[in-house]
């Protein structure tokens, strides 16, 4: 299966449904940190350019806040695509992610729960 197919399968998203409204990019709190913007992410998947995505900063800048997923009017949900791309990268790298045993040491009372969840989503697959 090609990378693009993998992304589609993992995310369950059909990127062709995107109508390029940009609501994802308008909603994204990490927009300025990203080299490839959320709405462009969709285009990259459509254009089969997963390599560029993998090398981008964006994959790791997404906070998994789900704003784009909540608001996307076309059920494209770029956040899911980004998440899928990350998963593929992590799978490629092997099991060097976070293990549950390591968590307690990293915990900080001030740390918001959301961040913890998002870290899990990012690193622990």
């Amino acid at each position, binding site marked *: 299966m090609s990378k693009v197919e993998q992304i589609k399968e993992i995310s369950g998203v059909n990127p062709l*449904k995107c*109508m*390029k*409204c*940009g*609501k*994802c*990019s*308008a*909603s*994204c709190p990490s*927009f*300025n940190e990203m080299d490839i*913007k959320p*709405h*462009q992410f969709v285009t990259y998947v459509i254009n089969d350019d997963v390599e560029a995505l993998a090398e981008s900063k964006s994959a790791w800048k997404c906070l998994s806040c789900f*704003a784009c997923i*909540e*608001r*996307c*009017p*076309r*059920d494209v949900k770029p956040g899911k695509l980004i998440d899928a791309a990350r998963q593929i990268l992590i799978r490629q790298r092997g099991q060097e992610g976070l293990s549950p045993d390591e968590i307690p040491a990293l915990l900080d009372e001030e740390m918001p729960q959301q961040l913890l969840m998002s870290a899990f989503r990012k690193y622990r697959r």
Partner: protein
Amino acid sequence: MRKIGVFVCHCGSNIAATVDVKKVVELALQEQGVVHAEDYPYMCSEAGQVRIAEAIKENKLEGIVVCSCSPRMHEATFRKCAERNGLNPYLVEIANIREHCSWIHKDMAEATEKAVILMRAAVAKVHLNAPLQAGESAVTKRALVIGGGIAGIQTAIDIADAGYKVDIVEKEPSIGGRMSQLDKTFPTLDCSACILTPKMVEAAAHENITIHTWSEVEKVSGFVGNFTVDIRKKARYVDMDKCTGCGICQEKCPSKKPLNEFNRGLNTRSAIYTPFAQAIPNVPVIDANACIKLNTGKCGICEKFCQAGAIDYTQKDEIITEQYGAIVVATGFDTIKLDKYGEYAYNESKDVITSLELERIMNAAGPTKGHLERLSDGKAPKEIVFIQCVGSRCSDDRGKPYCSKICCMYTAKHAMLIRDKYPDTNVTVFYIDVRTPGKNFDEFYRRAVEDYGVNYVKGQVGKVAPQPDGSLMVHGVDLLENKQILKKADMVVLATAIEPNPDVRKIATMLTASIDTNNFLTEAHPKLRPVESPTAGVFLSGVCQGPKDIPETVAQAGAAAVKVIGLLAKDKLKTNPCTAKADELRCNGCSQCANVCPYGAISYETRQVNDHGIREDRRIAVVNSALCQGCGACTVTCPSGAMDLQGFSNRQIIAEVDAICR
């Protein structure tokens, strides 16, 4: 055994060049019941038809097969020929040996063999054809228009002008509809009321038009040409005949709490009210929920002040029953609820409004007397943001999948009007696409940009965040610049998706008119019959069929009127005799057929039957042949074979199958 005549056409050389017509004639004579067969160069010609006529008389033919071109070409010709000569037109069958045979095959032997088989199938079928009579039904020369907006008004006027009676049923206290709420209209910027009011007056004054406002359709029965409709005239508590429309009751009414629907709830009105000054009829209604007298028995101020003595607290809802030949649905639209769009803060901030609300704000009769001001603090907004496609073009469950079609244009209109009247106010429009297919539409939009300096930004807004200082932070994006935009605004206007009036579902059910997944009424054919419902005698006008602007609505309203006039102009309706029919002895009464009928043509009645000596009451399907269009969906659903289609009966089709597979 029926006496059958077979006529084989050469069609010049079109058929005869590849089909051995003599052979077809020869073999036809060996078929069961065929007593006459002949060939002729042009069967459809006058001379050809004379030969058919003679053969019918000489041989006392009881069925005819014409082997010729497609029945789509000349079936009607040969049927008429048969009818003229005393043979029921439905005892004619066509074997298509041109389009389906001679024109596509080169080998004479092969083409001849096929032509013979097609001839045999037609002979086998015609043996089982029943002499059908096209039914007739009388037409009530009166039309009903449901909905008194611009669509309904226009349809009614057009029908009335042709000399037919029309009734308009409007559920609000006045006709006028959405258009009466608009301030100006695109792309000409003329005042909506100025062009609508004369139409309203014309309708009210028309001798052929009866208007039932504050009324709803309660029940519909019957079929094309003969509908019976119950109309509920809601209690108005004001005598229509006595009221002079002076307005004093509204002024004196102490109950001022109810939200003013006409102004989209942006301000309040009295319990006794007319929705707007130019209302037709100019007779108020009492809002029974808000009226102090009706709720507590005390008050009665309006009655005291009414010099005409028109107030009548004892009025009750009344049901009137009328007969109609045709029904036009013109139920219009509303804007969607925005509860699911929390990100736009519509429910949080008074300064986030819909475009229709903006219409009322801009209107001199509106809640702010036409002054553009923030509803929160009354201040004039300096920075206004328009957001397009709110709830339109969505494939999620929050919005609608379609384009609402009118938003691009009215937003350009709003932007232009604001920039014109308040030049120091900045207007930004966040859009996905600007859609302007229409006469003078794109020019209009360009004027907004070029002449009025409206700032169009391509990109949807992600979020509107109310700020502590009362302003609104708009989180947008400029996709062309690939930049996120944070814009502080004083007012945000949402181009909210439109949807069919929620009542339409109830009405469609009563009319058995089909409705699509978005609650728009379905047209009989999307291209060729766009103003007719698949249910015969029901027509569509305006946005109930799909999003439209005013000129399109008026055009469709006229088109629907023409269809209605065409129907009402007939004294009798000829009905297609190829309709379904249930065999009462074999019907189980299981209702499956009714479930697949797209026309609501099947009903059930309990009837005493005599089934070979057993007399019992049974639930039996009954097909209304005036409604049935003859698709046959019911016949296959029926497990007992009780439902059959005349002209295409089970036995006829099986006979064709058998003849082909012989």
